[in-house]
């Protein structure tokens, strides 16, 4: 089931033999090697999982997790009756949906373009330039977005002024933000995904194209009948895996680039920013934990399901 290990039969030597003793010390050493990671995972990943009971408690910092009173489904009832929670869920799903579609289409196009000029000296420049934003933090992105959209001296409003259009108070106009965030998400992810698809294109045997050309197929026909079908498994798997994480938003993008402006929440508040604010600002901890719990459960089902499906299509790309 797990792709994490090599699938080879394990030979267990009989106890007491020379080989058996050597094997046992070997195994003991290996267990020792894995120990730091095992301990880390226990402390930083497993223990917090049990903390999920906070969702069912009226958590007070002074009383701690065990001392706080049980509150049953109180937090969940409060959560589903909060319009802001529903808004965050809607924004997360819509924005992630738009991101998946725009990312897939644009990076596929970019990878095909790269493939077309792969032997040119410029190809490496294009790749590097497109990949660069992947390593720029959202904090830095927020800085240039401010230079573009600042009401008084931003570039966008200068352009509008030159065209004779009234300037826009961008950080108070939520209607523009789905487009702005989609553009930024593309800016950051395009290089990464087009490299993945470019690698996929390089894996297609060139003889197919040569044969098609001999038969007089146009470039469009080649793209439709050779490239697309052969790349489809890779694309499907990546889309599936992204859909598996559709309830998880990119906190850095939604929090930094919008500068956490309350005026924009109607379009930009996602589950992650909502939970963060409930935890740190409104200090409604049980409420935030309830949101996190629901998301963890839905996320688990989706990630598991999408990986199971992805495995059937393209075993190498899935988790298991």
């Amino acid at each position: 089931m797990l792709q994490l290990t090599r699938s080879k039969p394990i030979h267990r030597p009989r106890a007491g033999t020379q080989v058996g003793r050597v094997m046992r010390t070997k195994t003991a050493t290996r267990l020792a090697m894995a120990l730091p990671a095992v301990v880390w995972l226990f402390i930083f990943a497993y223990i917090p999982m049990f903390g999920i009971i906070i969702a069912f408690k009226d958590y007070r910092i002074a009383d701690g997790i065990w001392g706080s009173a049980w509150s049953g489904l109180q937090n969940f009832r409060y959560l589903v009756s909060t319009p802001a929670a529903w808004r965050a869920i809607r924004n997360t799903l819509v924005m992630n949906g738009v991101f998946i579609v725009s990312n897939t289409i644009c990076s596929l196009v970019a990878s095909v373009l790269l493939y077309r000029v792969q032997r040119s000296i410029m190809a490496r420049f294009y790749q590097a330039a497109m990949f660069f934003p992947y390593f720029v933090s959202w904090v830095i992105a927020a800085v240039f977005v401010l230079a573009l959209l600042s009401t008084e001296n931003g570039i966008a409003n200068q352009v509008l002024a030159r065209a004779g259009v009234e300037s826009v108070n961008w950080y108070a106009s939520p209607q523009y933000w789905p487009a702005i965030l989609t553009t930024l998400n593309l800016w950051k992810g395009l290089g990464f995904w087009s490299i993945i698809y470019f690698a996929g294109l390089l894996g297609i045997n060139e003889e197919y194209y040569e044969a098609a050309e001999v038969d007089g197929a146009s470039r469009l026909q080649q793209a439709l009948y050779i490239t697309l079908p052969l790349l489809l498994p890779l694309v499907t798997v990546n889309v599936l895996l992204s859909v598996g994480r559709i309830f998880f938003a990119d906190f850095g993008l939604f929090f930094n680039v919008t500068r956490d402006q309350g005026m924009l929440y109607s379009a930009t508040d996602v589950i992650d920013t909502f939970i963060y604010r409930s935890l740190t600002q409104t200090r409604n901890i049980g409420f935030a934990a309830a949101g996190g719990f629901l998301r963890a459960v839905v996320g688990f089902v989706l990630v598991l399901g999408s990986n199971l499906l992805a495995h059937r299509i393209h075993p190498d790309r899935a988790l298991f």
Partner: protein
Amino acid sequence: MTTRTVSRVRSPMVYRIQNRVSELLVHALLLAIALFCILPMMLILSASLSEEGQIATIGYGLLPRGFTLEAYEYIFKVPGQILRAYGVTLFVTAVGSFLSLFVMALLGYVLSRPDFPYARHLAFYVFVTMLFSGGLVPWYIWLTQGLRLTDKVWALILPYLIVPWYVILLRTYFAGVAQEIIDSATIDGAGEWRVFFQIVLPLSRPGLATVGLFLILMYWNDWWLALLFINDRNLQPLQYMLYNILNNARAIQANVAQSAGAVLPLNTVRMAMAVLATGPGALAFLLLQPYFIRGLMAGAIKE
């Protein structure tokens, strides 16, 4: 593609011209995409070199408005805070990436051994953490109340130590080391540690480099852990300092505007700070991006 056999249907001449035109078109499109990716960073650089007065009257531009190093001079007049932030970021990046790579490589190695009887159990143990997590709240409470990591430099390192995806990547690289080499070393009396350090690690250098570089940039760019766990100004990493400067004017006073009386060139100082925070990371990227790309492509079409 240009060297491909010429089609029999269209005449060679027409074909060559068509080919040339479409190639130029592709170059134009790719150039536009590349500019779309790089221009924002040029904008920050230009703004940091602009004159504050001109930004206030005309606004930001893709080319510097005037040319001055005023913003940088202003920051380095009282450099204490920014140098500290650099120090924190450098420490966290160096120690964090090294520790993380070491711990993950050990785990990846053990998982890659075909004759390790508990490989499946161990893999499952790692795997569960990729599928399920308690979410932000229990994690945050455990780290602050239980482990008491608030305002400790380890709060910026430990929570990122293991990234399961990178463990998988490392395991794949290690599994590619020929079993015969390892077997012959074992017969010559090499123990597990020796095999790991002297055979498997050196033979997996490209894999280690790829993951190592991803880790370096992960730690260099991090502001999230500081946002959650750091209140002490002396423990601010660069990115978090910049986040503060961007989001409240009071932070800029506290961090850079310690020289009384001077008028703060707020707009350009922000941009100069962004340049200073990106600079070393961008340089590392430029030098090492061929490895990233190669490593990523190898991962995409592995096995």
